[in-house]
């Protein structure tokens, strides 16, 4: 157990170290940062002093070490474009993205699983086949286009919902978190972006649950449950659905990465003040500190998710533990 966990931890730390190295090396591409900070008439001595103060004359290894130890404490330097600390910028934008992504994952689970069960059980039904066709079209329409069409329908034609921004937000948790869940305009602003972001995930979840249901319904224990005379409801939900959920949960976990990626697009369509838009602006402006910080944060997020998934497998699947239980290996 300890060996398995520590092995996985060591791998994760190695990956984070490599990503940090890539992120740090980005700084080397933009040339001398001093030139962007000084005025035209700065003397050579002043430039040298500034270089010394900023530590740019130190060896690369020491600069890298300084960058890593700063990053661990949430200090990613100062944005070239916003002229403010990157850590502060990210902390400001994080609530918007987390609320949007969280709500859409919730939506995709709440809608996708029932639809998947339905289409799996009524494989040849007209409604189920219609849903499958719609889901194929849904996969082919890019996220940004769906967002635009929703805006056109609900904001421009019907005028029901706002088309951009978060609406009014309320500061909670001592001002460190701004939430849109507590005001009417905040909630209304959440509807269109979260549907846009949830749509692709919903079709994924639906198709996956359907495929799993089709597999499970063919297994012997379902036939046996039928033979025992169990009711349809008990078979479908107690026996079948339960066994489809394990892979579904795994995929949803791994899909969180997709949610982050598509959040960039959704935030851009709806001018949502989140981290995705911050990153996109950084790419457009070649704002290296923000890009590096985002890269490290994304990698950290992925490493944590993978670590949790692996450890959950270890906890759930006894076969992974079998090599530590000598003598009972051939189960």
């Amino acid at each position, binding site marked *: 157990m300890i060996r398995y966990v520590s092995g996985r931890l060591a791998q994760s730390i190695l*990956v984070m170290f490599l990503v940090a190295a890539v992120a740090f090396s*980005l700084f080397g*591409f*933009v040339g001398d940062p001093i030139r962007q900070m000084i005025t035209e008439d700065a003397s050579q001595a002043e430039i040298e002093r500034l270089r010394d103060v900023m530590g740019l004359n130190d060896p690369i290894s020491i600069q890298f070490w300084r960058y890593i130890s700063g990053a661990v404490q949430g200090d990613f330097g100062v944005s070239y474009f916003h002229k403010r600390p990157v850590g502060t910028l990210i902390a400001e934008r994080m609530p918007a993205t987390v609320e949007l992504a969280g709500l859409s994952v919730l939506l995709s689970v709440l809608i996708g699983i029932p639809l998947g069960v339905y289409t799996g059980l009524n494989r040849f039904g007209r409604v189920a086949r219609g849903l499958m066709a719609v889901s*194929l*079209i849904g*996969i*082919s*329409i*890019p*996220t*940004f*286009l769906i967002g*635009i*069409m929703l*805006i*056109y329908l609900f904001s*421009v034609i019907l005028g029901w919902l706002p*088309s951009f921004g978060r609406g009014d937000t309320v500061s909670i948790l001592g001002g460190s978190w701004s939430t849109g869940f507590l005001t009417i305009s905040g909630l209304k602003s959440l509807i269109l972006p979260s549907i846009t972001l949830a749509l692709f995930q919903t079709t994924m979840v639906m198709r996956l649950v359907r495929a799993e249901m089709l597999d499970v319904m063919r297994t012997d224990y379902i036939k046996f449950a039928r033979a025992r005379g169990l009711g349809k409801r008990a078979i479908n939900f107690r026996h079948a659905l339960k066994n489809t959920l394990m892979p579904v949960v795994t995929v949803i976990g*791994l899909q969180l*990465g*997709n949610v*982050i*990626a*598509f959040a*960039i*697009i959704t935030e*851009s*369509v709806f001018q949502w003040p989140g981290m995705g838009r911050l*990153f*996109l602006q*950084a*790419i*457009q402006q*070649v704002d*290296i500190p923000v*890009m590096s910080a985002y*890269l490290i944060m*994304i990698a950290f997020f*992925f490493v944590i998710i*993978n670590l949790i998934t692996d450890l959950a497998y270890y906890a759930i699947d006894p076969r992974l533990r079998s090599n530590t239980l000598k003598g009972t290996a051939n189960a």
Partner: protein
Amino acid sequence: MPETSAPATLSRWQRIRQSDIAISFLASPVTVAAAVVALLMIIASVGAAFIAPQNPYDMGAIDIFDAMLPPAWEEGGDARFLLGTDAIGRGILSTILYGSRMSIFIGLVSVALSLLIGVSFGLIAGYRGGLIDAIIMRTAEVQLALPTILVALLINGILRAVAPPSTLDNVAILVLILSIGLSNWVQFARAVRASTMVERGQEYVLAARLIGIGQLAIMFRHILPNVLGPILVIATLNLSGAILTEATLSFLGVGVPPTRPSLGTLINDGTNFLFSGAWWITIFPGAALALLVLTVNLVGDWMRDVLNPTLE
């Protein structure tokens, strides 16, 4: 002997008609329709310069007084512009034709790049094994765990940081192709590596080694033709993905320069006029993009089912 020679008298066309692939193709009307639509769109975009009613990038041909016209069948529409015009008087039909030419071009070139990288890496990893294999496949796994669009955005950002700002517009298309191509090679590499590992143990490879043929020649002249089977399917499926990624990047403003727009750029431009009710500037390029991606996807799905049912 007339009986035995009878099959040989079938014309080439008849033989094609009676092959398994053609029969399965014609048995699926959705696939036939998708293939026809996809082919028509590709032909129309390649011949954009001849088909388009106007050249939208010829400043002399466009007239600002034609700006913001609705589609021809709506009130105020103009018969010269079937799908209406945009804010500077370019016909939407013409911009769509030229835009999809750009989208399809970038899609094809970046898939070709992914194919080149993926097949080479897959061959080397599968044939050499050991440390090289481990490095290539670990990299592939990490990249596979990240969404394509995120990888493409990151590569795009890094390339933009590397390229001097003054040359950015000129290299924008190259940056775009590189970022899409580099984010999609993994599937090719995995498929080629798996079949290379099988081929490596075959007798013809041993024979080639015995007569002293070099490693590179064995990999690319002898093994390569035998592992190309699944490549066509993966390439077709990746083409729709590459077109989508290109459109998304261009929509996000990190794609093609505005002077040479693709479908994604056109959609992005159009969103500024959505609130004034000019829906056609956005919706028609969007529909063209969705139709293109959907039909290529359908053809790719069918190819996967018929040619390589084992691919995921």
